[in-house]
């Protein structure tokens, strides 16, 4: 079955691609054409990389399937779990306030292994902030040697929402980030030339930005292919908040750069924003998801009598929370797309500090935050590690390995320490891959055979940040057939994806194991697992739409694990 031999065409990345000379040197500095040129330059390498099959080349699950049913993310590797947060703002965001050192110290104190610093992209950030945040990040790495501190960007995706973009530390990392932001940030592209922008698109979220988003992702992928960075990743942030990430855009990003655009926030940050005023909170919407459709919103997301895509459900974004919804529609295509959970920390609930007074537009820096001496109950965020964890399975705690774990979907999005671990194994009991695969993986079984799912969950071994030990009440096993690429790229439902089985934990805690067997499987399918504290559940087992002004994040806890794909052959 492993017939990808005979193509041992060892292109060495560094020999082929033009490493030197940034896109800025080109005579034609129109970002789209530059990226297209570089992308085409990289194509020959992409073929060589895929032919290598194994090894460090990040062969995508799709290409593996084509090579002949080689499982991805095999179960039984000695991966360890590393908790992190890929969405953190600092004083280098116009609406942020904390120094990098403070964010990293908080993350470390609350058990995070990795963080990504993601200040908002824009003209002032590109011009002034990058040079200031870079040494701050380097200092934070030295001060916190056990925390991986990635330098990233919260990219204004042209035509859409925000996204985390980041890379491991490297000789070219900052140069790539700088060029990327100058060439492809939606705020830079939409701002008039007279105000320092490029004036190339109508609005940051208008549809004329969409080709730039694809070019941007191809640019990042070309940086990987040319060896300027070992890996680069993009996660779409708060995807449903304003309804501007249309289904075809999500699909387009993934297809444009499958090694780079790998997922989205399953749960947005700002999880304290829904705490009731009566309980001392800000009384806003959980996740600050309080918007309604705007001019650039996708019309298919219109709120109606049964649902409101602009709200969170059990703290998670509607795209992820709805069984048979948008996330499932991507997975049902067999399209790898992973979900995460982040803090999006700007201003922390009940903190006494406020933004520094420095002029952001001219300095790219708010300056040191100011202590008002008054607890700010109107703030809606948690510090990194207080509430939202993206837990990643990786071989080692290294910058590249953790990113490879994220890229391969060995990821659980957890709120409020609902679980401490999840060992998922999916394997063929009959002819097929009997070893099986884990989260984000792809396994296979001969048609008509049986597939066993083993879920070993580790419940919280101690209190979360609220001081309580969360109680996992149930696990849901969700599955649906893989029906292949959709003809209509704006499809946003997977009607055949259903809740297959709910496992109640009762009084069980610690390591708890459940097994389920799909018998006589006739078509390829995928499955995924989620869990809940059972406090707010609809009649069909799902999360409830969060109530504006009354959403206690500590009493409505969920986790979502990423899927496993099963090819029936």
């Amino acid at each position, binding site marked *: 079955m492993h017939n990808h031999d005979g193509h041992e065409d060892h292109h060495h990345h560094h020999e082929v691609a033009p490493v030197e000379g940034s896109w800025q040197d080109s005579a034609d500095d129109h970002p789209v054409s530059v990226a297209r040129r570089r992308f085409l330059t990289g194509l020959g390498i992409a073929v060589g990389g895929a032919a290598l099959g194994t090894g460090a080349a990040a062969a995508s699950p799709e290409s593996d399937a084509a090579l002949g049913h080689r499982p991805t993310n095999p179960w039984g590797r000695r991966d360890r779990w590393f908790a992190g947060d890929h969405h953190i703002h600092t004083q280098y965001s116009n609406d942020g306030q904390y120094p990098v050192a403070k964010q990293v110290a908080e993350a470390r104190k609350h058990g995070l292994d990795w963080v990504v610093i993601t200040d908002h992209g824009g003209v002032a950030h590109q011009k002034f902030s990058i040079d200031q945040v870079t040494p701050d990040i380097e200092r934070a790495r030295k001060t916190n040697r056990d925390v991986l501190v990635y330098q990233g960007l919260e990219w204004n995706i042209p035509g859409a929402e925000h996204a985390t973009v980041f890379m491991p530390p490297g000789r070219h990392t900052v140069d790539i980030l700088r060029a990327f932001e100058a060439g492809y940030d939606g*705020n830079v592209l939409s701002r008039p030339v007279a105000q320092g922008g490029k004036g190339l698109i109508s609005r940051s979220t208008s549809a004329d930005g969409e080709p730039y988003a694809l070019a941007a992702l191809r640019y990042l992928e070309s940086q990987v292919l040319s060896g300027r960075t070992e890996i680069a990743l993009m996660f779409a942030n708060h995807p449903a908040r304003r309804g501007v990430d249309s289904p075809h855009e999500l699909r387009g990003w993934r297809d444009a750069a499958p090694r780079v655009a790998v997922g989205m926030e399953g749960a947005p940050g700002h999880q304290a924003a829904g705490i009731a005023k009566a309980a001392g909170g800000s009384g806003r919407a959980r996740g600050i998801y309080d918007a309604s459709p705007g001019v650039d919103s996708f019309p298919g997301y219109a709120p109606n009598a049964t649902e409101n895509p602009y709200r969170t459900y059990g703290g998670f974004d509607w795209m992820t929370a709805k069984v048979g919804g948008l996330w499932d529609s991507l997975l049902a295509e067999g399209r790898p797309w992973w979900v995460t959970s982040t803090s999006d920390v700007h201003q922390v609930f009940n903190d006494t500090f406020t933004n520094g007074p420095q002029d952001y537009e001219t300095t790219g820096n708010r300056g040191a935050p100011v202590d008002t001496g008054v607890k700010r109950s109107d703030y809606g965020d948690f510090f990194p590690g207080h509430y939202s964890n993206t837990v990643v399975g990786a071989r080692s705690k290294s910058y590249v390995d953790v990113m490879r774990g994220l890229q391969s979907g060995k990821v659980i999005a957890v709120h409020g320490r609902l679980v401490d671990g999840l060992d998922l194994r999916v394997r063929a009991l009959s002819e097929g891959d009997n070893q099986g695969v884990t989260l984000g993986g792809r396994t296979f079984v001969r048609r008509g055979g049986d597939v066993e799912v083993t879920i070993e969950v580790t419940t919280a071994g101690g209190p979360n940040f609220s001081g309580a030990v969360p109680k996992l009440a149930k696990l849901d096993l969700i599955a649906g057939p893989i029906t292949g690429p959709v003809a209509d790229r704006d499809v946003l439902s997977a009607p055949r994806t259903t809740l297959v089985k709910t496992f109640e934990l009762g009084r069980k805690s610690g390591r708890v194991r459940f097994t389920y067997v799909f018998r006589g499987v006739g078509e390829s399918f995928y499955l995924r697992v989620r869990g809940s504290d059972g406090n707010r559940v609809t009649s069909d087992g799902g999360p409830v739409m969060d109530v504006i*002004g009354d959403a206690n994040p500590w009493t409505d806890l969920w986790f979502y694990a990423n899927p496993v794909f099963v090819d029936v052959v």
Partner: protein
Amino acid sequence: MAWISLPGRHSDHEVLSAADDSGLVADLVLTWVDRSGPIAVPVISMRIVGTAPEALDLPAEGRCVRFPGQDWLVGVLTAGDIVAGSAIDEVVGVGVPVTPDSPVDTRGFLRPSYQDGRLVLLVEPTVDGLRPVEIEDPHQCCGGQH
């Protein structure tokens, strides 16, 4: 009555000022999105009172920023009162039933949707009852600069 349409991006305040400054009396003012081109264009449509009936650029759906009875809809009102006292035809809850005696906190800002000639106000549960899904002051990310 006639409809007139104006493309362009405006705040609700600007939309209503433009309607009033035109010297015409518009009893129904809608904003809607023209998605026929590569870039979505916001459009204002106004129904002008006292002119000959004409169907000009009548949108199938939109967002209503002015409608008969609007000035009266302030404070907390029942869904029944909202329908009885204004041009709003129906109050619909997201995932929750709405009865005529359900209280709705109007927050002094109602933007019912216009769907094939009907005005529908979508409401959702909050800590103390129901409120419109669209509010006047949703969170502006990055201080509204993006």
